[in-house]
């Protein structure tokens, strides 16, 4: 009878400690404690110890299954953002004669960046622990298998983490094509994007998310909060887009000749797909199927909705009408701005961030662009550069330990917690992203201009890139 009591006590204690442990794991996904083997002692018979160890392994396996399922779905959702999401969104915004060319750029990047990622990309972003860029530790995906990488996501296979991060690397350069649309050579685009990925994206991703990175929120010199890529994805692509637009110059006929979007229906469908895919982007960045993922999911939805309303309202007051293009542009601007904040803020700040971003980006693409007369054809800078910057700064204001105690339990995180210094850290992060993006892009543009040329011939531009670069047309409606 006595040993039964001991076993019961052991089991009860284990269960009681396991529950809070699991709950804690769901808050801090990156460091789940490895199950420590229970040794048989005089008080715990061998059979019981074995059984307990088995149970612990099963619990860990169950959590890994759940996390892995969510992360694989998230990876697919993020790919859905580029093709078809972004391809349709941008495709509808260009003129009919350039629809295939712009869609092809997104699609080509899906293939190109994937191959680069397998060869060196993943390693340059997440290999080693240098302050600026990764190393070749995982070149050719060496050492990337089903064993989790505890530095990044301890409950999912490293292959899952690797493929999930790839999807971010794909969409980032694809966003830039919005600024170069309707006039950049396909050859120049492929070469430029290859180099841009290595020179701008890889260091930025490593600095912010990589182990030992100088902007990493945990242990970095300037701890920058960037939950899902406000600086890494949107500031870098947006600022590079601006530099590209300035370097390439205006499209033939801009701004005198009308260049209205050829199909807002395509753009509409694309924007809605972007919204859905963004749940994988932001909530997936929790790298686990936990409370943090739910929190980021909620913030994403609220940020997008408030921004759609903000942009529409600004437009309504200014032009007397709320347009469909305005509403979807606003939603995308809100999704951009909530990206760095998603895992750090509550639902009410998410509404505020979204609304501010919606109004701000409306002003950027309507007034700011007109004042400075650059031809950012599809407003890659006005939405991603501007939205990413304002979102990154507001993250410093609204981040709260209650939603993500990233600096340790009980320690304040952002302005709402009284730690306004974080806004300065965010500013440093944003400035570094702006600098790397601007300098890297201008150097690469010069180089690519010498090697392949950047801009198509004028007659090709007038005929349309579909027919002149790809030898086909998007719509052969009479055949």
């Amino acid at each position, binding site marked *: 009878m006595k040993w039964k009591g001991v076993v019961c006590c052991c089991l009860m204690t284990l269960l009681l400690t396991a529950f809070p442990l699991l709950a804690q794991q769901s808050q801090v996904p990156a460091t789940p404690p490895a199950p420590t083997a229970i040794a048989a002692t005089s008080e715990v018979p061998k059979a019981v110890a074995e059984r307990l160890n088995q149970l612990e392994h099963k619990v860990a396996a169950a959590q890994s299954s759940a996390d892995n399922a969510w992360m694989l779905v998230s990876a697919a959702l993020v790919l859905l953002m580029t093709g078809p999401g972004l391809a349709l969104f941008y495709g509808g915004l260009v003129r009919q004669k350039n629809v295939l060319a712009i869609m092809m750029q997104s699609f080509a990047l899906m293939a190109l960046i994937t191959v680069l990622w397998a060869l060196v990309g993943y390693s340059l972003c997440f290999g080693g622990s240098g302050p600026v860029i990764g190393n070749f530790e995982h070149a050719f995906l060496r050492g990337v298998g089903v064993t989790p990488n505890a530095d990044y996501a301890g409950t999912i296979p490293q292959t899952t983490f690797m493929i999930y991060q790839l999807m971010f690397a794909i969409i980032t350069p694809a966003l830039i094509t919005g600024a170069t649309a309707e006039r950049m050579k396909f050859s120049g685009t492929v070469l430029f994007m290859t180099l841009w990925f290595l020179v701008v994206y890889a260091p930025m991703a490593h600095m912010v998310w990589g182990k030992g990175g100088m902007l990493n929120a945990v242990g970095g010199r300037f701890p920058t909060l960037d939950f899902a890529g406000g600086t890494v994805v949107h500031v870098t692509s947006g600022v590079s887009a601006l530099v590209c637009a300035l370097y390439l110059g205006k499209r033939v006929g801009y*701004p005198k000749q*009308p260049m*209205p*979007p050829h199909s807002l229906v395509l753009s509409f469908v694309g924007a809605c797909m972007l919204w859905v895919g963004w749940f994988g982007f932001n909530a997936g960045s929790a790298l686990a199927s936990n409370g943090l993922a739910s929190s980021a999911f909620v913030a994403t939805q609220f940020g997008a909705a408030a921004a759609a309303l903000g942009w529409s309202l600004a437009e309504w007051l200014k*032009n007397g*009408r709320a*347009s469909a*293009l*305005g509403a979807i*542009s606003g939603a995308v601007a809100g999704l951009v701005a909530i990206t760095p904040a998603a895992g750090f803020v509550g639902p009410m700040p998410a509404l505020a961030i979204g609304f501010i971003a919606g109004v701000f980006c409306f002003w950027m*693409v*309507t*007034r700011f*662009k*007109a004042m400075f007369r650059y031809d950012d054809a599809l*407003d890659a800078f006005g939405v991603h550069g501007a939205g990413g910057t304002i979102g990154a700064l507001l993250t410093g204001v609204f981040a709260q330990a209650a939603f993500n105690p990233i600096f340790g339990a009980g320690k304040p995180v952002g302005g709402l917690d009284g730690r306004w210094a974080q806004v300065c850290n965010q500013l440093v992060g944003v400035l570094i992203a702006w600098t790397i993006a601007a300098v890297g892009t201008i150097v690469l543009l010069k180089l690519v201009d010498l090697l392949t040329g950047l801009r198509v011939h004028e007659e090709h531009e007038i005929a349309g890139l579909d027919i002149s670069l790809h030898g086909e047309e998007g719509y052969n409606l009479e055949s």
Partner: protein
Amino acid sequence: MMKIEAIIQPSRLESVKEALLEIGIEGITVTEVRGHGRQKGHTEVYRGREYTVDLLPKIKLEMVMADGLVNRAVEAILKSAKTGKIGDGKIFLSRIEEAIRIRNEERGEGVL
């Protein structure tokens, strides 16, 4: 024989067709066209950029008929195509010298 060409609002096409059928006009050719009269189009705004769209979509009807039908046909078009707003379109009449049916080379009013 006379030819009636009528430029009308696309939204009035169905009622004009019905009205013409009612008075016994059996042959009609319809074309989608773009143009402007005094109306001078409208403006569209995309992300703050305004475009004046001065060529608006219209429908052009063409029909050739015996002289006796012309007045009733014009009346029918006037009645069915009118919305009372700028942009309702115009009717043009012209004389036709000959009509030939391609199938059997028949000539004259009988082919209409």
